[in-house]
């Protein structure tokens, strides 16, 4: 190793980030080269001085009592908050309850799949005042875009999607992949779950052509669904809202892009979602056959 080579990796050597073999080469070089030994010594001294200067500086010390206040606040928080941990803990005596739940779930699943196949949802769920409700859900999605992605004006803080639940992370992947692979550039900005006018949204924000684009997913059960493969577009002021449905969710693309560009973004997501659903439906059909045999 030459001095020049050493100078190139001296920072990583100092941080102990080199491979063992490279480390050995460095040590061999240092045995031979006094100049580099001095250099590394200087750097170590500076590093230690920096560490002690910052750690001892009054500016960076917590004020007296802060740690205690923190403990008290967190303690109160832990007492009022529900512990998610306990949902995953099952004691020995709960196995019967778990088995009963499983049978019930399978039964309901069977019922759901069977009735879904013959397209016999009860009319009062799917059909009543659908047009009015659809408009309403779109206006709520637009409101969420304006108050969450654009102005940060929500009464409740959004929860980061990774912290919210692992299943949302999966959903994020469903939306992220098609947009990241698109020929037009979509720059991922953030993803979270948020609440607007009582509706929970999974909210993924992109930047496209310098504008904020919201992809919002929400349960449409209260509002009614679109027909298969149907897509809608609506303009409200400068905003464009495109919608398609994915299983039991409405997916909105809301932005102030042009009508054509906003709709193209929604089409991109819809085609990817359809592919996923057809794959899942094949899996469900297999499950249905298996359940019919079992019952």
């Amino acid at each position: 190793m030459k001095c020049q080579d050493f100078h190139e990796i001296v920072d990583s050597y100092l941080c102990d980030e080199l491979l063992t073999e490279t480390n050995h080469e460095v040590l061999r070089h240092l045995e031979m080269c006094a100049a580099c030994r001095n250099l590394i010594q200087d750097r170590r001294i500076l590093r230690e001085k920096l560490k002690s200067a910052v750690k001892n500086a009054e500016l960076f010390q917590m004020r007296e009592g802060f740690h205690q206040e923190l403990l008290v606040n967190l303690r109160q928080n832990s007492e009022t908050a529900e512990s998610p941990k306990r949902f995953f803990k099952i004691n020995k005596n709960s196995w019967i309850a778990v088995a009963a739940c499983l049978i019930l779930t399978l039964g309901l699943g069977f019922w759901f799949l069977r009735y879904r196949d013959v397209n016999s949802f009860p009319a009062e769920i799917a059909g009543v005042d659908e047009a009015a409700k659809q408009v309403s859900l779109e206006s709520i999605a637009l409101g969420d875009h304006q108050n969450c992605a654009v102005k940060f004006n929500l009464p409740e803080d959004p929860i980061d999607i990774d912290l919210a639940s692992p299943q949302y992370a999966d959903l994020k992947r469903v939306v992220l992949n098609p947009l990241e692979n698109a020929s037009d550039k979509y720059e991922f900005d953030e993803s979270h779950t948020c609440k607007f006018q009582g509706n929970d949204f999974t909210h993924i924000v992109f930047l496209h052509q310098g504008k904020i684009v919201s992809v919002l997913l929400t349960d449409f059960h209260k509002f009614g669904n679109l027909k298969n493969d149907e897509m809608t577009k609506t303009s409200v002021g400068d905003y464009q809202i495109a919608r398609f449905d994915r299983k039991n969710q409405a997916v909105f693309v809301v932005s102030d892009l042009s009508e054509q560009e906003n709709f193209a973004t929604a089409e991109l997501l819809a085609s990817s979602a359809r592919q996923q659903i057809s794959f899942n439906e094949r899996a469900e059909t297999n499950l249905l056959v298996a359940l019919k045999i079992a019952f």
Partner: protein
Amino acid sequence: MFKLIKRKSEKESLWEDFEQEAMPFSADLFRVAMFLKRERDAAEDLVQETFVQALKSFHRYEQGTNCKAWLTTIMYHTHYKQLRKQTNLHLVADTEEKIAGTVAFEAPIPQQITDEDVLQALGKVPQNFKEIVVLCDVEGFAYKEIASFLDVPIGTVMSRLHRGRKILRGELAVFARNYGIKTEDTGEVKYKEGKSL
């Protein structure tokens, strides 16, 4: 009644684990928060919010892994979210290229340099570089961990660390000259009145 006691004991045990694993890092988190917020009240708020979030998702923390790095990741998430709320700005311009060529020489580190000198010099390092120098040299995080906090590639961490340290040494060279220590830009040894090496 038995279930109630059991539920309480689970909460109690979660809290005890949290207190034991996470709370000892409050001082470290506060230091990082001070670098991010540059103001005591805002730093305290950030630390508090970080611990609240950490407590909420503590069931996802894997015991035995690096708790300080886990907490710092949450702190950065929280900080960026607050920034985004406050400003609605997206940082796109990077000052790295502008700064890259401004520091030209290596200076030896004089023993006489005080903590105040070091802090003053650190204060002159641009924020992008300073935070990586602090995370690496003061807090002892690995490249990989820093890359994950800042959501940048490891190569960016390495280059910013290199430049940050270089700028810091450049700033300290000013103090070195004041102490009468030779620097490579002039090649001369200047002795300040009343000082000796």
